[in-house]
């Protein structure tokens, strides 16, 4: 299909060069309209669920009314920026912003290298069956919802009934309040995040590693390279572009965050660290009916994310990598 398409395209081009006119384009289209028809579906999806809702960004600049269409709502004060000003004056928003950045940075620093290292290690395992078993086991947590994971965490880490603490106290050690103090909670949060996702995230690296030509390894062996040398000089450079792309995407999400992980894991004792923008938006906006305020916060979040994404992409190109586009 691919090759055929190319040929026709070239044919169309040559013919187009020869006789400029509409006919060639329509011939091309007549032949391939089914493909475009198929493309129509995802395009429609994007249009309906991603582009049309953008119209409602206006809510951030207007006084929200649940019953009137966006266009009829009154403009907010201060040239429409009332809610942005309100957000930045709000202590809670600043705390949420700070927490979001802290948690995401920690996630990045602690969590980003883990799947890479794991993929490297897994790649060196020769026993196929063992390798498969390890892979399956490490993927599994990815399919658990955060609510379930919080349930597990309580079973393990609750101060009086958690198994880990029971074990500690039976061995005569002091129990640890894994979930009840801010400092420990952050560690638990990051740890659970890594545990939940590293297996899954390693898939893409394993795929990249599989794409490296075995001839390079053979040549290196002939030259007398050891395992670590091969890892360092062949495998890692081989997956460098994958790493960069994923890093850019991770940086693009530095002040975004999923909702369910912090929401499921947070509790009243640690809110000074656990309240992030997503949960703040939910509580102040959806539950407090302050839709304009939270639309403003969401818009701000998206804009900053885009800036980070572009910045990371620009940086990576400056350092000679491909970047995303």
């Amino acid at each position: 299909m691919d090759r055929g398409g190319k040929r026709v395209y070239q044919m169309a081009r040559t013919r187009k060069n020869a006789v400029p006119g509409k006919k060639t384009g329509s011939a091309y289209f007549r032949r391939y309209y089914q493909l475009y028809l198929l493309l129509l579906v995802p395009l429609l999806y994007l249009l309906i669920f991603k582009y049309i809702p953008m119209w409602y960004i206006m809510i951030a600049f207007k006084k929200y009314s649940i019953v009137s269409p966006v266009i009829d709502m009154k403009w907010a004060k201060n040239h429409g920026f009332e809610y942005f000003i309100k957000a930045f004056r709000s202590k809670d928003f600043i705390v949420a912003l700070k927490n979001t950045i802290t948690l995401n940075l920690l996630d990045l620093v602690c969590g980003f290298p883990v799947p890479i290292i794991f993929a490297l290690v897994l790649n060196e395992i020769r026993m196929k069956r063992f390798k498969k078993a390890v892979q399956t086991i490490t993927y599994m947590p990815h399919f658990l919802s955060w609510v379930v994971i919080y349930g597990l965490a309580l079973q393990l880490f609750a101060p009086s009934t958690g198994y880990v603490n029971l074990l500690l106290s039976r061995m005569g050690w002091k129990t640890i309040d894994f979930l009840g103090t801010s400092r420990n909670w952050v560690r638990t949060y990051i740890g659970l995040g890594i545990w939940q996702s590293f297996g899954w995230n390693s898939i893409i690296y394993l795929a990249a590693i599989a794409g490296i030509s075995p001839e390079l390894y053979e040549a290196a062996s002939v030259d007398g390279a050891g395992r670590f040398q091969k890892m360092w000089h062949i495998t890692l450079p081989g997956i460098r572009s994958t790493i960069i792309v994923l890093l850019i995407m991770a940086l693009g999400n530095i002040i975004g965050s999923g909702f369910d992980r912090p929401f499921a894991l947070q509790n009243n004792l640690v809110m000074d660290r656990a309240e992030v923008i997503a949960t703040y938006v939910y509580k102040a906006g959806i539950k407090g009916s302050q839709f304009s305020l939270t639309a403003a916060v969401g818009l701000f979040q998206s804009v900053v994310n885009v800036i980070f994404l572009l910045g990371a992409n620009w940086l990576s190109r400056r350092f000679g990598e491909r970047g995303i586009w």
Partner: protein
Amino acid sequence: MKKLLALVLAFVMLFSLAACVSPSVAPEPAAPEEQAEPEKEEAAEPAEEAEAEGEAEAADSELADGKFAETRHITVEIYDRNNDGGSDPTNNMYTEYIKNGMLEKHNVEVEFVAVPRWTEVDDINTHLAAGTAPDICVTYSYPTIKAYADMDAVINLRPFLDEYKAELPNLWNWLGETNLYWDSDPNDGTTWAIEAKLANMNRVITFVRKDWLDALGLEEPATKEQFHDMLVAFKENADTLLGDDADKIVPYSVSFDVGWRAATLIESFLDPDMSDKEYYVNGFDDRKLTQNGTKEAVRLLNEWYNEGLMWDDFALYGSGDTTEDDMMKAGYVGAFSHNWDYPWRGGDDSIAANLKRLVGEDAKYIAIDPFEDKNGGHNKFLAGPIDRKVFFPITNDEPLASMLYLDFISDPETIQFLQIGEEGVTHNVLDDGAIEIIAATGDAIQNSGMNIDYTITCNGLHLLTDELTNKSLAHTYAGIDPEDVLRANEIAKTDTRVGINVQAGDIEAEGGVGDTLSSKRDQVYDLAVKAAEGEFDAVWDEGIADYLSSGGQDIIDERTAAWDAVYSSENIR
């Protein structure tokens, strides 16, 4: 062939997508436009009442003997509690009764719309935005209704209440001006919601394991000190009380919602004679966080916590979690404070029933009143005779029929039937005439205690005569010793102070901050109870400062100013 396949595939995808999308997307742009029209009419303030009156008169001519000439159709919100083995909340013995009654009496067709109980506000939000909100909506949260009203999404009920007073005898008899006008604006009378009546105002009391007291030869505690000694005795004798499970003992259990679950203790530290003004000014939060005296109550809880007398993990389990209930059911909890009838709620799955099954015949909780206030009484602040709030969204185009529904549902006979059902099916009549509730099956199962979800203008047992009500109250919990219930009822009604309605107008600072402040409040309580020895003051003060600077102080200031503007003295009563 391939081409055909691709075509078919593409179209199937397209259509399935369209099918998924159309119901949710299509009405969105259309519906608000339709609503925008009447909304503008309603919102035009000076014209509002005249408009509604005009409407009212037009409708009046259609009413003959309280009956519409043509059948009207209204929709009514009903909580879906999703109980295991419950009945369909929109179609059971009780909905049939309501539907038939409304059709017969007023020629109005009633349709119930189920809304999940625990996400009701979110769901009503969605319904309102989509233009599909039920004609009669119910919620516990007045701030939510106020927020809708500010968006012109709610009908002003006042003109209908006043205009049709004669057509609504039951509603007026049952709720009266107190509840109907509770939320009325003191200046122009605008009424966005009417308040259901709390027939039984009992709030929080304290329970203790009777069999534990007996096993250790302890007296029922009558003071805080005795209560504390009792908790210590429970802890020290855990081996006797629980055997192998001794390490699971929780002498006094409080959940994350400290303000509710230690309410009697907290209230015993407040001044029973504080002025109405003081109570109102600090009263935005019904958990008493900013009242004078609360800090000392929490300090005591903090001491108990650090002595190991309380549940270690209380702050980790959120609302709706059953872990603490399960501990009570399994018999690990010595004492707790909660709603006055909490151990008996839930019929076969109640705490009392489980305790009997799992621990033994004589294992049970009894009500006590151990927290003395500074006058030696047992001060309990009650909220006022109000309960849920009923409002009509702007999409309601049958306000009169909806009002008649409220009248029908406030009819004493309707209330009695909904609460006790049919003889032999949901209740027995005892020798002295008292009603005893029995476990029902199938269609007759009440999804909520005494069908509170249907009796939207009434919370609490309310039978045709007061005498019958009082006699029957003790028998409303299947399988529970009536003596225990009467005792709890008596304690809950001891030294109470009923909340009054302060009509000082809207407090602007309260808009939209309710949820933020209540979660902050819980954080302050939880952190303070859990604070390490010697750090209590710092933790409490920091938490309160945060609470106040997040909007709490603005509310207090505005409430003070509003009070001073309306009332000349510190007390109303």
